[in-house]
């Protein structure tokens, strides 16, 4: 049973437009959520996170929204740039009591 789901395996967006990556979770004990970005042949790198006490966190071009009642979060990238092309993983944590649980990832392609 997948506790963190990313239902879109891939997404293609034009440069300058908004990219929206979605993530759903099933475990109501999760209270901290993270997005990681992964380039080929590299490990995942931390991008942005959000605590369950918030519904939005912004860092430059990246914003994460959390809807706890729907158990849904999304990552918005605006404006999208070709260098944003990578695989994005959503991950969730339970107050540090268990290791991070990852989704399957969404491959974002930003077309110039």
């Amino acid at each position: 049973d997948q506790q963190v789901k990313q239902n879109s395996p891939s997404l293609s967006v034009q440069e300058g437009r908004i990219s929206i990556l979605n993530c759903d979770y099933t475990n109501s004990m999760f209270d901290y959520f993270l997005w990681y970005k992964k380039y080929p042949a590299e490990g995942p790198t931390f991008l942005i996170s959000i605590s369950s006490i918030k519904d939005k966190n912004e860092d430059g071009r990246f914003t994460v929204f959390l809807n706890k009642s729907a158990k849904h979060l999304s990552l918005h990238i605006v404006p999208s740039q070709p260098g944003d092309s990578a695989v994005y993983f959503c991950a969730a944590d339970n107050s540090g009591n268990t290791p991070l649980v990852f989704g399957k990832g969404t491959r974002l392609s930003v077309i110039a």
Partner: protein
Amino acid sequence: GAGVSQTPSNKVTEKGKYVELRCDPISGHTALYWYRQSLGQGPEFLIYFQGTGAADDSGLPNDRFFAVRPEGSVSTLKIQRTERGDSAVYLCASSPGGGAVGYTFGSGTRLTVV
């Protein structure tokens, strides 16, 4: 070191052989995690160390997999009698303490069992 170092970066082995994968965490990080990423999947948790002890090994798929961290720094993931299904990228991450904040991943070891 500056980051998490994993060696080798690539390993090809024959079915049935034994392999060891090494992880050098960031100096001072007490928590160390092993994950496995198969093609088209996200990282799947294998085992977590806090210091020298395995705090959670619930993700190890079977008794062919074993990991150690004898001095609380470097960790070795050991796989016995490798099978083709073990082919994946094995990722190591470290963090200053338990919890989600501050996970830093290495570049991984790509294991191919032929």
